[in-house]
């Protein structure tokens, strides 16, 4: 196999199209479509007493107005709880349009359809909704205190109490030579894809079929949801994810109300209808993540080895729980990271608040888990006067311990068994990359320049590629073109390149001949979706298996023609040849023509193929039983459990002690995602993740006031880092292949974001000598911290001052 592209930094084939304006995003579709706009709740918690649409009826260009009263059948029922769980004892979901009560600012109440979006907004502005306000529950502490409740019949605001334990934690803690307990917080942020959500629907009354384009991470499931909710047969609905301008998790939630309401209107009106989410809508009616209160108790010995860990987390799930308790479970199970935790107990209480729903955002609970574990490591080091790297080193799972069973149950219901890894290797590489042992010299140099320098690190293990399955279809055409389809979707990850690399390598064809289609239910109807760092693991392996099926069939057909043993054949540059016998060959495209016994000579390819045609036996049918016409194969990959990627980050910060501005001067990443399909794409994923990690650590927060109004619902005040705020990133690689899948790969999509807050909190704490217990942190907050009499001074800082004094 000389057409070996697997593992090469092939340039992304989709980028020329996407960055020169030739992408086809949702809003590029249906230019003549009617436009939908929504009247959304201005209150965090209220009863709707009246909806008066009369004033809107005069607006020229208004086509239709829908309220809850217009919903029928399953549409009038609450939206589904996608992922139920026995410990989610009080699930709640909203309705497509509010049914008498609103539970967060931004909840849809009325849908307006008009000739264009301007007119739709003019009409929406005239609709008067009367409310009776109810007390709002904002923030995890208010929910926990339960002074008032979000849902009347859930007085304690607790939706779920997720609990796992690996032993009897209380006696283990009691027996520990040292104990620490502390509380810390992580704030809300959000995915913020460049392209918001959007839906376009077209109903063909003659064909009785519905075509929906939606900016989603899960087109096959949106299709099923629309069919069920609109009472259509599955074959009457097709759903396509066109080019999607980023997802990061928010578009895995489905069906969004708009994904049902826009098709409903398209059918009712017999017209194309489109809704394109604007940024304000995205802030107040999509999804957020990350807010947690973490109460941590840890026992450890004189060497800093953890003997017991007891974690109680309060997780803000917003107004509803459509995505179940995936994020709490991920926090609970991924918190343990690369460490041996002899006895572990975790309880996550998932609580309702009158704010936007909380569903996975890149990292999906892992950044919080990492923050809990890594800050615990830092505290142990501080108490014992040990190097933070040394404490981590002593607690790491060793390479000989794999497969390593944590005796926990993961988000997919399968055991948390780490398949492979080399965590000491990661740590050694990280220390070398960031110059960990030479930091004191850097600190002195910075001090001479009037700056406070600090370094921090964080390690993580990330369960990636959960099942249940993905599929791939590979077909060679008579033209030589190789069509590849998988059902999961693409939001900019470079699947057109990485999946093509896999097929080119497996099949022995030029990558230029390979065309990849994702997220189109017409091409591949069975799929789960793109989330949980699973696309390369799941569809990558499924596509590889499908390509292997095609290869096997191609060799079988070619062997007949060339009168050779299939085992003596190879495919290279799209030509099947007998190994070591020049001239004994047949183009793969010709094999594709031969694979179909019906060969009308429409084109040159078919004519040429006839010269290779083996005389058919009169004793056999043209298509052998068990065989099929065509050179194609469909296959599925279904893993026994997730594969576990890992990594370690370190950050060096310099802080101006006059302005308390925080400058990240060095950011080092060592990552291990097993065999790498395309190292350039993996590095790009890491860069993007680090950018979001830095954003979550230093810039982004959802600034809700006590009434549940989001104070910074625009890009002027919600501070995503610009390129100028993202540090230069140095990356080192480690490859520990997964034994669980044919390609030996692990997921890489979320890794970069996970340790950001933990590593940066550690670095800032190191620089200023004050305990950081809440992230993100901004200069104004850092100023408050350093002059607060209540701020805890770190022991390391006291020791350093002592040495110098």
């Amino acid at each position, binding site marked *: 196999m000389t057409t070996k592209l697997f593992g090469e930094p092939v340039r992304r084939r989709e980028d020329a199209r996407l960055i020169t304006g030739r992408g086809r995003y949702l809003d590029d579709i249906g230019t003549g479509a009617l436009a939908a706009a929504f009247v959304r709740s201005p209150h965090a918690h209220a009863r709707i007493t009246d909806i008066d649409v009369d004033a809107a009826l005069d607006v020229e260009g208004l086509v239709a107005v829908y309220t809850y009263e217009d919903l029928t059948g399953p549409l009038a029922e609450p939206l589904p709880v996608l992922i139920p769980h026995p410990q989610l004892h009080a699930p709640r979901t909203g309705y497509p349009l509010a049914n008498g009560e609103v539970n967060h600012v931004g909840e849809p109440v009325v849908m307006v359809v008009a000739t264009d*979006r*301007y007119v739709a*907004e*003019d009409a929406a*502005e005239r609709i008067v909704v009367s409310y009776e306000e109810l007390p709002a529950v904002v923030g995890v502490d208010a929910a926990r205190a339960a002074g008032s409740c979000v849902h009347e019949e859930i007085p304690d605001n607790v939706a779920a109490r997720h609990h796992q334990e690996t032993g009897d934690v209380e006696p283990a803690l009691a027996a520990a030579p040292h104990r620490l307990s502390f509380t810390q917080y992580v704030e809300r942020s959000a995915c913020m894809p460049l392209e918001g959500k959007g839906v376009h629907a077209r109903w063909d009354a003659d064909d009785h079929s519905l075509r929906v384009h939606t900016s989603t991470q899960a087109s096959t499931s949106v299709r099923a949801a629309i069919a069920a909710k609109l009472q259509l047969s599955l074959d009457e609905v097709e759903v396509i994810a066109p080019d999607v301008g980023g997802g990061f998790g928010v578009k895995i939630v489905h069906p969004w109300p708009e994904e049902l309401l826009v098709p409903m209107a398209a059918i009712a009106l017999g017209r194309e209808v489109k809704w394109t989410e*604007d*940024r*304000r809508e995205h802030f107040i009616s999509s999804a957020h993540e990350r807010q947690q209160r973490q109460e941590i108790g840890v026992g450890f010995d004189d060497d800093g080895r953890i003997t017991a860990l007891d974690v109680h987390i309060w997780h803000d799930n917003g107004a509803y729980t459509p995505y179940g308790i995936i994020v709490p479970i991920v926090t609970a199970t991924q918190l343990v990271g690369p460490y041996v935790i002899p006895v572990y107990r975790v309880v996550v209480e998932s609580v309702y608040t009158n704010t936007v729903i909380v569903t996975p955002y890149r990292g999906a609970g892992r950044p919080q888990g990492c923050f809990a574990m890594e800050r615990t490591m830092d505290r142990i080091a501080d108490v014992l006067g040990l190097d933070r790297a040394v404490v981590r080193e002593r607690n790491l799972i060793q390479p000989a311990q794999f497969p390593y069973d944590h005796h926990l149950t993961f988000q997919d219901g399968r055991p948390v068994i780490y398949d492979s890894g080399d965590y000491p290797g990661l740590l050694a590489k990280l220390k070398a990359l960031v110059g960990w042992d030479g930091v004191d010299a850097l600190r002195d140099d910075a001090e001479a320049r009037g700056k406070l320098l600090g370094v921090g690190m964080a390690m993580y293990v990330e369960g990636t590629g959960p099942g249940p399955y993905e599929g791939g279809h590979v077909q060679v055409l008579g033209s030589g073109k190789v069509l590849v389809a998988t059902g999961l979707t693409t939001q900019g990850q470079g699947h057109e390149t990485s999946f093509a690399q896999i097929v080119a390598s497996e099949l022995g064809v030029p990558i230029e001949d390979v065309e990849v289609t994702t997220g189109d239910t017409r091409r591949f109807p069975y799929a789960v979706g793109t989330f949980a760092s699973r696309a390369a693991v799941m569809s990558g392996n499924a596509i590889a298996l499908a390509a292997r099926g095609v290869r096997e069939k191609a060799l079988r057909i070619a062997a007949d023609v060339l009168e050779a043993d299939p085992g003596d054949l190879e495919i290279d540059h799209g030509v099947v040849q007998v190994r070591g016998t020049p001239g004994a060959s047949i183009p793969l495209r010709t094999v594709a023509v031969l694979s179909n016994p019906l060969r009308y000579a429409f084109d040159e390819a078919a004519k040429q193929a006839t010269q290779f045609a083996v005389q058919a036996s009169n004793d056999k049918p043209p298509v052998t039983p068990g065989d099929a016409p065509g050179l194609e194969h469909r296959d599925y990959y279904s893993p026994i459990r997730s594969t576990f990627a890992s990594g370690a980050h370190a950050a060096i910060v310099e802080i101006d002690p*006059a*302005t*308390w*501005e925080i400058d990240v001067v060095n950011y080092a990443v060592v990552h291990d995602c097993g065999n790498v399909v395309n190292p350039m794409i993996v590095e790009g994923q890491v860069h993007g993740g680090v950018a979001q990690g830095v954003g979550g650590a230093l*810039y982004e927060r959802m*600034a809700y006031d006590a009434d549940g109004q989001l*104070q*910074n619902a*625009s890009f*002027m*005040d919600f*501070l995503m*880092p*610009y390129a*100028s*705020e993202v540090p230069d990133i140095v990356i080192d690689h480690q490859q520990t292949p997964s034994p669980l899948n044919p390609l030996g790969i692990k997921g890489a999509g979320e890794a970069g974001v996970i340790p950001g807050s933990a590593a940066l909190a550690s670095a800032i704490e190191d620089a200023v000598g004050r305990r950081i217990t809440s992230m993100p942190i*901004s*200069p*104004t907050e850092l*100023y*408050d911290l350093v002059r607060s009499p209540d701020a805890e001074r770190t022991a390391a800082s006291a020791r350093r001052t002592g040495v110098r004094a």
Partner: protein
Amino acid sequence: MKPAPFRYADPRSVGEVLEVLAAEEGAKVLAGGQSLLPLLSMRLAAPAVLVDLNRVPGLDAVEVDGEGVRVGALVRHAGLLGDHDAARVQPLLARATANVAHPAIRNRGTTVGSIAHADPAGEMTSVLALTGGSVTVASPSGERAVGWRDLFVGPLETSLPGAAVVTSAFFPALPPRSGTAFAEVARRKGDYAVCGAGVVVTLDEDRRVAAVRASYMSVGLVPEVHDLTESVAGSPVEKADWAAAGALARTLVEPDGDLHASADYRRLLVGVLTERTLADAAAEAAAKVTGE
């Protein structure tokens, strides 16, 4: 996020502009649109008519003479930033415009528009004040100059009547033996400053500090100029206690807190930025005196 309906006028002279403004209740002037259009899209503003200045001839010049720099209403920030004559006569112009947002915004946004918008977070409102500048206002009763103190009434509010348009801004030249500096602390590069400072230091012929003035961004409801001379008056420039000037500045300002900075933090920054910019401005002034 689509604007409410509005009518659009694109007059070809200042006279026609004034006719539309006089005839239409709630008309609003459009120049670069960098502040106005987001307000329209969020329906925070819904003027009945937009009066587009962009086709009015004669408003796009930067005129420089020994007295100062006159900036026409259609001069973009980027144009002023790149004008070396203007920078020579009043260096604060280039130093401040370099801090205005990002290149795409500087390419469209106008300096006069940002002054007429009267945002106390804006750089150019502050520089107009610090330099003792004025604007020329055309109204049906004729043209008149309005000094910066009379112009700014409150956040996003000027003293101009409805039927009036600012046709230019005038920034007086930097006095002799003076140096300037400008600095901001922003959450992200190009954002509105959490706090910004522009300063002018003037020395006497013996290189002693004669005058120190400062103006701040995102501090207070309207641009203010603070005279900090008393803290360092008469000091030889090399020995001037700029920290004392910073300390004085902290006592003179009344900042507010918001999502990005507490009032205390802004006050801290006023002190730090004052001290740092004054040191730079004084060094520049000292070099000029030495060169004389």
